[in-house]
């Protein structure tokens, strides 16, 4: 048996001290709770045939409400095709083809991940980005948004897009058809029209169960990884694929949500607004004392010797 070292002792004291200061059990402030009852989608890249019906349905359904527009390609002066190159201020969802070789390729669909602990919601200064506690939908309210684009800086997936060419711009991102298809038909437009079942809409727990089942039944067909199950604290949009996710444009991410880290620091500094008030009162005390001292002996502050032979009388 080893005696507890001094360092261990300090650690324990520090931890219990911190817990006391926090005023509640340390466990409560650790991590957010992942909810599997929330709504989401499972995209299975191995089933996708790249027909882009999802993209066209998204624009048809959300065009007016979500300020979406068709994007012309350079060769297409008549505007016959909608040809977005990437997610943009006109496009909420997009299918891309990644081709390594003639035998190794994959389609891939992009849209908002609907994080369980979304960075965009954490950083929005005016609560224009919100996460619905029940449905888990991360939604955007243009009537609150000031257009600071902090959500874009914060999002690890680069999902929120800004309308750079408009005098009255807004942020564009997927809201799971919250006010359109989901409200009318109970399913997102992209999942509704997908002819191959590559997009599945449902509750997160059902989607996870389905994904695990597919992985078990066809282990050779997939990478053994459900992207979004753990990444950045879990997302409601989940992915299955045969190709490495980072080759498909999804970043390799840690399981901790970035918002956990930043909020922890921000909350430590501003807990109960005690630190700023304490700072202000201390400084007031010092400054008033200095002022009184100065009035008693005009022209002589607590000078620092050499530089202080001031000839500036009051």
């Amino acid at each position, binding site marked *: 048996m080893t005696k507890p070292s001094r360092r261990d002792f300090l650690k324990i004291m520090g931890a219990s001290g911190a817990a006391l200061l926090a005023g509640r059990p340390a466990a409560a402030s650790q991590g957010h709770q992942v909810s599997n009852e929330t709504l989401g989608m499972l995209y299975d890249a191995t089933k996708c045939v790249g027909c882009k019906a999802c993209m066209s349905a998204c624009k048809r359904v959300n065009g007016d409400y979500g300020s979406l527009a068709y994007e012309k390609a350079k060769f297409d002066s008549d505007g016959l095709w909608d040809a977005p190159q990437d997610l943009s201020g006109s496009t909420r969802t997009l299918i891309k083809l990644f081709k390594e070789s003639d035998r190794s390729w994959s389609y891939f669909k992009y849209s908002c991940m609907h994080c369980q602990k979304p960075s965009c919601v954490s950083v929005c*200064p005016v609560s224009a980005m919100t996460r619905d506690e029940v449905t888990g939908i991360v939604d955007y309210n243009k009537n609150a948004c000031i257009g600071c684009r902090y959500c874009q*800086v914060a999002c690890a997936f680069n999902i929120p897009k800004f309308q750079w060419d408009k005098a009255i711009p807004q942020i564009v991102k997927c809201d799971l058809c919250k006010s359109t298809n989901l409200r009318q038909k109970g399913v997102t437009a992209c999942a509704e029209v997908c002819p191959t079942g590559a997009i599945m809409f449902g509750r997160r727990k059902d989607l996870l169960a389905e994904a695990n089942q597919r992985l078990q039944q066809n282990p050779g067909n997939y990478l053994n990884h459900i992207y979004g199950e753990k990444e950045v604290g879990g997302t409601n949009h989940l992915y299955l694929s045969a190709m490495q996710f980072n080759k498909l444009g999804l970043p390799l991410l840690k399981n901790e949500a970035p918002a956990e880290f930043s909020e922890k620091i921000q909350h430590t500094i501003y807990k109960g607004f005690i630190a700023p008030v304490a700072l202000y009162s201390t400084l007031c005390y010092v400054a008033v004392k200095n002022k009184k001292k100065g009035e008693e002996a005009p022209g002589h502050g607590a000078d*620092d010797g050499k*530089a202080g032979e001031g000839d500036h009388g009051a």
Partner: protein
Amino acid sequence: MGHDEFQKHEARIFTPSFLVLLVLTLIGFGLVALRFVKGIGAVSNMSDGYPWGIWITYDVATGTAIACGGYAMAILVYIRNRMHYHPMIRSAILTSMFGYGLAGFSVMVDVGRPWNAYNFFLPSKWQANSAMFEVALCVMAYTTVLALEFLPAILTTLEKTEWRTLQMLLDKLHARTGITRPERLDERLESVKELAAWLKPRLDKVLIFIIVLGITLPTMHQSSLGSLLLIASTKLHPLWHTGFLPLLFLINCMFIGYSIAILESVISCYAFKRPFETRELAGMARIIPWLTVIWLLVVIGDLAWRGQLAAALSLDFYSRFFLLEFCLVAGGSLLMFSGKKRESIRWLFVSAALIVLGGALYRFNVYLIGFNPGKGWHYFPALAELMITVGIVAFEILGYQVLVKILPVLPKLHTRQQHDQAHGVAEKA
């Protein structure tokens, strides 16, 4: 501490530099108008990968640090009780006021939906998790505080004014167009003077509490400017992404603040042909290296702790910018450690300039250079985007130049001899 420590700078307002600055300002503001008509994309190279460009990086994140002269001087004078620096404070506060006011203006140009900014004042929209929320409220409050701190200069002038320019303009107007002077004008002007005289002693009484607020607020929002990038853990290079960002930004703004106060004093004495305030500046320069040493130690310690020292020395793109920033700050501080160099205006200027450059580069590194949103994204400011920033800076210098000539801002020259000397030089020029 009376108000008679300050004086107007007696000189012509319409100088050649005034014209140059005016032209730059007008170009900048014309482009701002274009931005509001055609969208941000029409004047800038910002993109969905780099949603924050030069406006946020320079005008806001760096500009407010450069505007921290007022903050640094207030700490020195009112908290560390070095009252002999008091004569220098008004010009520091004036530049801070311009810096912060124009940072606020830049934000309004930069944000896409500025008409929604009233949401900051609706408690239902408050979002305490957001560093941006804290920065926005704090900067708005601090700009107000700076205006209040500067108010005595305006009140003193109002109290003593004889409205000569106004009277002259009215006379001219009358002669040209035949418009008669409004009735009871003199009476009204008199009441403005009385109001100023009534307000000044009352403001003086509570001023110390406003000043202290002007020290608390920058402490809060300058650290929060660092906190803004805490969330970007996947985009900001590990050389700069650390939990110490708020602390590093806070110390950074302090040493930039003192250094910029030195630079401002040297430049304005040079430009306005006044004797240099060498002794005060040397005293101030003694504080700076201690701040930079703490900052450098935190930087190194943090890199070592996170195992990034090798990355810092790897001489790749990021490492070079890191080393440049580090060497500029360290080099400037080394010069300032030497007592002899501190007594020389030239060396003071050089070392302060190095430190301001290094400190500003640190902020650029955090906001732009070390920020990588992923493959395929690039950013370099567009000409129009740069010209808007240039216009705003030009307006800042222009406003300073004009205000020191119509309000008592600069330290009073003390002896008859000093005064004559300054006059002589000014006349020769």
